[in-house]
């Protein structure tokens, strides 16, 4: 059964169009939803998770309409983009409290939460207040609440945003493992190589429309033709910058207050080396890696023109 079927789906907010006549079938397995900020990814995510009602057309998730159908959430897990929590609770308490809303009893919810926390490798921090978590830990505890009830469909909105390279690698591995275990996963990002490392099945979205779907290798080539910008927040930015300057795929580099901003011609190779560098700890801790969506925006502009 298809994970999601959208039929002439449109969503507008007053005069602003979020989604424009989208007809698409998302197959089972892992699907990446790729598009720059403002492309309609979040609107699509909100419609398929039943937070927004279609203005026109229809949407079905796992074969059922989602708007006003709370029973379907037994089969869906959603990890939203926003960095929002009940900060006074510990990670384990929060996940247990949310799974209790699925009708699970007290003792069972605690056990399920502990398993989910373990799955996202947060066991050591499970009893700490969420307010004290790093960005990567917060992303992982969000994923724990999404998968705690073992749903058939996981919907992950920018799950790698702000993670350090090691957490990013672990999370990608986790998502691929869940896909292999038979779950359907829809994961959004504005970074192609992130999506590509999880799945070859991609939906390209821009200006509220699906531009392309399926196995889009050509897009990859296009991405490689455009320099890719990466911002790295680290403990010792100057030492890190010196190391990065020695790489032949680094096209340019500048130092900001607590970050090194790099342009690279080969993002895959660059990210692989950055992960190794973070693991070695040779130049201090690497706290956060982000990539602005300018990279993808340039490719989308090219695609739309052609």
């Amino acid at each position, binding site marked *: 059964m298809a994970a999601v079927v959208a039929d002439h789906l449109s969503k507008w907010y007053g005069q602003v169009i979020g989604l424009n006549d989208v007809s698409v079938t998302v197959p089972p397995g892992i699907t990446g939803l790729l598009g720059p900020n403002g492309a309609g990814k979040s609107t699509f995510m909100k419609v398929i998770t039943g937070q927004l009602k279609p203005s026109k057309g229809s949407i079905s998730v796992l074969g059922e309409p989602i708007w006003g159908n709370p029973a379907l959430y037994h089969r869906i897990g*959603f990890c939203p983009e926003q960095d929002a929590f009940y900060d*006074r609770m510990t990670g384990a308490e929060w996940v247990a*409290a*949310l799974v209790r*809303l699925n009708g699970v009893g007290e003792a069972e919810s605690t056990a399920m939460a502990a398993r989910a926390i373990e799955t996202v490798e947060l066991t050591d921090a499970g009893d700490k207040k969420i307010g004290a978590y790093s960005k990567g830990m917060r992303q992982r505890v969000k994923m724990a609440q999404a998968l705690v009830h073992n749903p058939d469909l996981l919907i992950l909105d920018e799950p790698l945003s702000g993670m350090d390279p090691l957490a990013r690698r672990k999370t990608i591995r986790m998502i691929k493992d869940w896909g292999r275990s038979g779950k359907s996963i829809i994961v959004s990002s504005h970074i192609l190589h992130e999506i590509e490392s999880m799945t070859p099945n991609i939906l390209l979205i821009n200006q509220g429309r699906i531009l392309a779907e399926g196995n889009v290798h050509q897009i990859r080539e296009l991405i490689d033709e455009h320099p890719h910008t990466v911002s790295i927040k680290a403990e010792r930015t100057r030492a890190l910058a010196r190391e990065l300057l020695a790489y032949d795929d680094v096209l340019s580099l500048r130092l900001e207050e607590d970050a090194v901003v790099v342009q690279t011609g080969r993002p895959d190779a660059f990210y692989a080396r950055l992960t190794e560098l973070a693991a070695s700890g040779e130049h201090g801790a690497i706290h956060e890696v982000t990539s602005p969506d300018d990279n993808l925006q340039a490719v989308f502009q090219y695609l739309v023109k052609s």
Partner: protein
Amino acid sequence: MSVFASAVRVFDLSLGQMLWSRRSVLLGLLLGGPVLLATALRIVATLYVSGFQINGAQAAGASIFGMMIWLLYIRFIVPVLGVFYGTALIADEVEDKTITYLFTRPIPRSAVLLGKYLAYLVCTILLVLPSVVLVFFLIVPTGGSGIGEAFPSLVSDLAMMAIGLAAYGAVFALVGTRLKRPLVVGLVYAFGWEPAVLLFPGYLKRLTVAYYLQALVTHQMPQDSAVSLLLQVFHEVPSVAVSLLSLATIIAVTLWMAGRTVENREYVLEQ
């Protein structure tokens, strides 16, 4: 799960958050006001005068307590609590962007509202209770009143306040789910509309919560000032049975309407 069973789960999740919120700390401070006032009155009564006088007449501690209950708690603190918590039941979750976690669980959205409303009720009762009890023990013994004989009125005052909190909370929950500036509208309703229409004869006062609450007041108020005599002319109070029935209807209807609104409304979180 049924709506009520789901609401109980939301209540479990929300009560702790609500009790330890900044709003509770601030309103807890507000509830310290009557205690400070009662302490001051007690000190004055003990050190300088024997009992209190209102308009030249000796007033018993129980009457002063009754006046504080009506003027400070029922007419001011209960509506304030109702406005500040009731309008924020869903708005807080939307503002904090945590509503997503509640609306993507297998429970009806109306259960989220109901659970939060129950948490509000318990939270505000827990805030009000110590303040009222302290004021009772500070004020009632002055002027010859006995704590034992006044105790039943304390119980009925607490019950009346719980009913007031339930009614105002439900009304402002509806305001919070329907309107764009619920806090302003709520404050205007509680401190503009209600006091204004209660002063005049006619049917408009039936569109207030205070009109029905005043029928539940058991205390005798001093009535020999010019203003109170004028108010007596227009004074019309429904029976206790009519008041209770009306308040129950207000609570049920406004909560049902608020629940319907939450079920059908789309919440667009700011990015």
